[in-house]
């Protein structure tokens, strides 16, 4: 049997907001027929910037573009009786519904898991919730920053002399969104083996907790509170400080001054490179890298190593350090910005970037490609994100057989 995608035989109804868009995108890229169900007028996530040519228009959100590839789109007000009836019709031909409403919302309007089971007994419902559909934080209001906070990750991020700090672009929904896609596919697999559907739930707080790995373990094993280290490393047992982020001529590079086995990979080669440019000091040339134990070396000696390396990095651009570093196997990496990533030769060589046509904009836009490569491109970006209600006719008229007259009524009643 030949199939176009990993999930070609499935249909997914995507009722998520910002918290779950990634989940549906991934299922679509993997080949499922994902139908994004939006409120009439469009999903609020269409108002999230940045925007195409900085035009703040719900049809031009780059945030929306990025996380809704490979989906079709319809509009439907599921709070109206007509809307609920239509949704139930769609459920019959669907395998799964994904949602990120407040816990209990769908039950409240008669579209909860048990209601949907009446329509289709083996339906799968995947919910992305900030904390849990049960438990003391069930009703809590959440945001990306709040999820960082309660997950324990935020406490250990940032400079010690400033408040803890997050990544300036929301991440928590993306971690949870990938987990939700995993859960959805596992439930589909289970249904394929055992014949039963079920509820799947992903907690954003728990998805995020995994990231700050050292926080809980440090308390659990040593009864110590781990604190934010900033852009330097304090190496035990003496607490010798080495930079992790270093300035270079046009930005920053990440370089970890390892001792021992790891140091023996990069450091002799780096020293040689510095020496070729007359920038290696006698001290650095005489350092026995494989026996260097940074945590037990006095700070003054480490400073004698750090200083010439700093000068050397400052004399080069990050792209020079990176490209030459690859050749010499010196593990110095650029702190890349988005331009650097678009220019990166490795991603180009691997044909990572894909062009998606936007006929409405008369343009093809370059997108980051699929997260995994396989034979026959079973995972790929199939089409650009849908416009508001772009597939209403395909779904409502051609598939469900609703007449044009009825469509006009539903439109006037703000159902679609």
């Amino acid at each position: 049997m030949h199939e176009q995608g990993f999930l070609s035989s499935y249909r997914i109804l995507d009722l998520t907001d910002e918290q779950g868009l990634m989940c549906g995108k991934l299922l679509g890229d993997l080949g499922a027929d994902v139908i994004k169900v939006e409120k009439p007028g469009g999903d609020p996530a269409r108002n999230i910037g940045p925007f195409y040519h900085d035009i703040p228009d719900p049809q031009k959100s780059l945030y929306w573009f990025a996380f809704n590839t490979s989906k079709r789109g319809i509009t439907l007000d599921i709070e109206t009786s007509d809307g609920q009836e239509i949704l139930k019709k769609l459920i019959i031909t669907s395998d799964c519904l994904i949602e990120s409403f407040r816990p209990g919302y769908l039950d409240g309007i008669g579209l909860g898991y048990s209601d949907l089971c009446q329509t289709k007994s083996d339906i799968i419902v995947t919910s992305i919730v900030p904390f849990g559909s049960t438990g003391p934080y069930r009703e809590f209001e959440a945001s990306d920053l709040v999820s960082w906070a309660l997950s324990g990750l935020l406490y250990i991020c940032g400079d010690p002399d400033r408040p803890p700090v997050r990544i300036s672009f929301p991440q928590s929904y993306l971690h949870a969104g990938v987990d939700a896609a995993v859960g959805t596919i596992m439930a589909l697999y289970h249904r394929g083996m055992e014949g039963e559907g079920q509820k799947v739930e992903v907690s954003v707080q728990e998805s995020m907790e995994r990231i700050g790995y050292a926080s809980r373990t440090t308390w659990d094993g040593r009864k110590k509170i781990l604190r934010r280290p900033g852009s330097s490393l304090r190496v035990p047992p003496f607490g010798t400080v080495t930079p992790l982020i270093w300035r270079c001529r046009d930005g920053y590079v990440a370089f970890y001054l390892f001792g021992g086995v790891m140091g023996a990979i990069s450091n002799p080669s780096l020293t040689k490179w510095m020496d070729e440019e007359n920038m290696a000091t006698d001290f650095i040339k005489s350092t026995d890298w494989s026996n260097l134990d940074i945590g037990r070396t006095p700070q003054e000696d480490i400073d004698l190593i750090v200083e010439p390396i700093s000068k050397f990095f400052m004399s080069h651009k990050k792209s020079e350090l990176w490209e030459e570093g690859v050749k010499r196997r010196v593990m110095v990496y650029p702190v890349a910005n988005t331009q650097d990533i678009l220019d990166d030769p490795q991603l180009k060589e691997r044909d990572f970037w894909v062009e998606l046509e936007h006929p409405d904009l008369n343009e093809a836009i370059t997108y980051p490609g699929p997260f995994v490569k396989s034979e026959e491109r079973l995972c790929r970006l199939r089409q650009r994100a849908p416009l508001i209600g772009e597939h209403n006719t395909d779904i409502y008229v051609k598939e469900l057989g609703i007449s044009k007259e009825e469509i006009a009524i539903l439109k006037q009643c703000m159902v679609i």
Partner: protein
Amino acid sequence: MGKKILDGIRIVEFGWAVVGPITSSWAGNYGAEVIKVETNTKVDVIRTMPPFKDDRADINTSLFFARENASKYSMALNLVHPEAIKVAKRLVSLSDVVLDSYTSGVMSRFGLDYQELKKVKPNLIMISSCMYGQTGTYRSMPGYGVPLTAISGLTEICGWPDRKPTGPYGSYTDYLVPRYNLLAIVAALDYRRRTGDGLYLDASQYEASVQFIAPLLLDYVVNKRINTRQGNACPHAAPHGVYRCHGNDRWCAITVFNDEQWNGFCKAIGNLPWTQESKFSTILSRKKHEEELDRLIEKWTIEHTAEEVMIIMQRYGVPAGVLNNGEDLGNDPQLKHHHYYKKLEHPEMGAVDYPSHSIQFSKSPQEVFRSPCLGEHTEHVCKNIIGLSDDEFEAYSAKGVFE
């Protein structure tokens, strides 16, 4: 609860450090029988990494290793030994999935690349998860999570605009990539279930990581804008930050996105006179006076514990949360409600907290069992899974195959 979803699936992990081991560990939570192939001759680096239980460093006492290697078995196999390759292939022939997280080229040097393994298991699913993928100039460049976070654009956008970037804590992408790896594995398992075909998955950690800034990449493509770090600010929300609370290094995050939340916020702090000033009445004016706003808020939060701030804010519908530290996480009422940490007995560490994975199924259980000691299950795997006789096992053992 019925059976676990991945019951009956066997995964052989040729893992290293964090990404490979976590991917298979999560699959193990949902029932896959995961066999980690490792060796005493070149110990998986994560076994040598702190924190250690009671600061006692040993290959079986790293809490870092434990946390990321729950729910799997350990088989010691020295792959440098030619006879070990035979044993590995016999194991693969009886398995469903092979996962490797070595640098590109290492598995083929062992003779364990997909082309070879497919010969012993025709419908094998194999995923290779290295830094930059299996092709291209950088394919064999070594690396780890901290620099991958930098090269993927995530370090640049974490920190304060007036300072060099700090980046998120540690090896951030090591906790992003395994989610994608597991996604690829379960998608391939369902594909195999329907079509009968296995396949090879080339999973570049770099290509997975940049997905998390996709809109910013489009912003550069379309608008030629390069985004950078902005502390905790959010362009369309104020207040939006982390505020110092009563106590030593205690903090609460407070975020206000609309009028309703702003009114709730004002009520929560008792309608202090400054909250009524016109310069704070709209989102545009709050953004304009954000620094002053943050200072005034902190004057209030510093008088309260972080827990009090969160509870009162939430009572009035304002998204707010304590910055949980390592101790707090164990007392977090929501995590406790879910029994998120499982306290399990480890033979060399005693009781250890193991986290669950974030997905809950209504009909299929998740079960976390403790991480293995190095080589703990070698004999079990050889005799009960591969079917070696006692004599064969002893003979291999004598040759150093299981070191």
